[in-house]
């Protein structure tokens, strides 16, 4: 593993020094990782983060640094398949067991753990990624079927340090609580923008015989079209508001009325 010293801002140095002193050296030596992040979020809910200049939003926006993980060389694979496909901006070539799903390949072999394994049975949408422009469930996709395809995951949506407008809208509208479903929600919502632009219909579209391009989606349309992404925290009104804002480009005021 290569060792990159992490450059911390003075605020970040103070934050980790005060709240997580035992991890400070590790953060500097090998980067801010998922475990640090979870601990920090735990402290945030306890209110300990409030006195620090740095806010949760800045931390969300800061890329979590990871080392390049070399491909595992499996000792014995019964039905090995060599598959190469594009993931975000680079082409990945991996030798996999034929049974491996795209989700497991992304998470366990390529090291992209943004896509989540919720149910692993196509019922929750947490594993949603965008393959050749279409949102699909990576838990029900065999990686072996992805040869030559282009996969976009949550890690590929931001351009350098600029969040994708959908990511920014989710932050602004608190489109999450625990955040587990969020990568799937956001990938799904990003692909939905393209579907709406192309005029795809949904079950609640009023006149299906009319071919409407560039649909501006109503709350009802968004709810129907996002129904494949379950949020157990129930952040749905916020998710709908975030998607409306990202689609319209206008500030959306939160609608706190309950469905009925």
């Amino acid at each position: 593993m290569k060792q990159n010293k992490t450059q911390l801002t003075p605020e970040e140095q103070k934050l980790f020094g005060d709240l997580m002193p035992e991890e400070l050296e590790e953060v500097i030596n090998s980067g801010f990782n998922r475990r640090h992040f979870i601990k920090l979020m735990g402290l945030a809910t306890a209110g300990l983060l409030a006195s620090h200049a740095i806010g949760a939003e800045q931390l969300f926006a800061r890329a979590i640094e990871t080392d390049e993980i070399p491909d595992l060389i499996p000792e014995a694979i019964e039905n090995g398949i060599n598959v190469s496909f594009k993931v975000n901006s680079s082409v990945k070539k991996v030798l996999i067991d034929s049974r491996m799903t795209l989700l497991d390949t992304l998470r366990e072999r390529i090291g992209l753990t943004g896509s989540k394994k919720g149910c692993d049975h196509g019922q929750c949408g947490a594993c949603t990624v965008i393959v050749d422009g279409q949102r699909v469930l990576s838990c029900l996709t065999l990686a072996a079927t992805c040869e030559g395809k282009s996969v976009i995951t949550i890690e590929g949506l931001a351009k350098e340090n600029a969040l994708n407008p959908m990511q920014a809208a989710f932050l602004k509208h608190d489109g999450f609580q625990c955040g587990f479903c969020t990568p799937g929600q956001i990938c799904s919502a990003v692909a939905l923008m393209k579907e709406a632009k192309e005029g795809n219909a949904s079950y609640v579209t009023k006149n299906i015989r009319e071919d409407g391009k560039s649909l501006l989606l109503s709350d009802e349309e968004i709810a129907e079209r996002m129904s494949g992404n379950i949020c157990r925290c129930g952040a749905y009104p916020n998710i709908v508001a975030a998607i409306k804002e990202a689609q319209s480009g206008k500030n959306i005021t939160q609608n706190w009325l309950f469905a009925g």
Partner: protein
Amino acid sequence: MRPFKFTAADSLNTAIGIRTKNPEAAFLGGGTNLLDLMKEHVALPNEIIDLGKLNLKTIKATPTGISLGALAKNTETANHPLVRKDFPLLSKAILAGASAQIRNMATNGGNLLQRTRCSYFYDISMPCNKRVPGSGCSAIEGFNRMHAIFGWSEQCVAVYPSDMAIALSALDATVKVMQTNFSERSILMKDFHILPENHPEIDNSLKHGELITSIEIPKNNLASHSAYIKVRDRNSYAFALVSVAAGLNLNGNIIQSAHIAMGGVAHKPWRAIQAEQVLKGKPATLANFTKAAEAEMSAARALSHNQFKIEMGKKTLINALEMALNG
């Protein structure tokens, strides 16, 4: 999952050839149902033949109607301009099923071949005649709220889950199949899926090695008078308790012919023949819709937990006919 050999078939001949030789091989379309069943150890293929490269994805007008490629995706089919304009009932039914992600993956042929979502079929620790013939039916005296009210047998009370197929049944579609001797045959939708009787392990009339190549729908006059209603436990992304596909061929206010099929009620798309007969040649009125719905539902037989489906079926039939009338 059981280990399996994976082959991406480059032609129809290769695909059918591999499967004909190996009784435990399975075709892979979108995989949305097959992979799930493999993870649960309900489906145990030792070889997977990926059909993704085959050229069976075309949706096109034909002299007699429309042809839907077996490997065209559900999303593309539902949104195809010809389907939306001339067969909106099919668009609506497809869009009532699953989620956007699943419809982006699912193929038309695969949709027809979905297996039941009966929870006992999925649970390999429970008896199920569909999964293990002769082991018994856990649902008939178990939790059978989601199960059949028409055409069930002592062997199996499971229902068929597709929405798309309910519309195809009402629209008198035909399934084109490549046989293992590489000649094509056509199967009418009404004969494609079968009732459980004594062999619930058999879902449909395909023989091992046969591959669906397309689905053909004949032209009709139903586009402006059709409706698909799906009643379920939540507003979206759930299987039907009851669904109805209805199309009315009207001459003024007189029903020349009614085309009605129900989902969530039987082991196959349930063509509502009794209701169709009551409506033929009659004025399209609420009174006649009610008579038709009552005639159809009079043959229903409820299980211990699904008595509600009979009243729900009647009301959904009436609602769908009214919606179809109003366009």
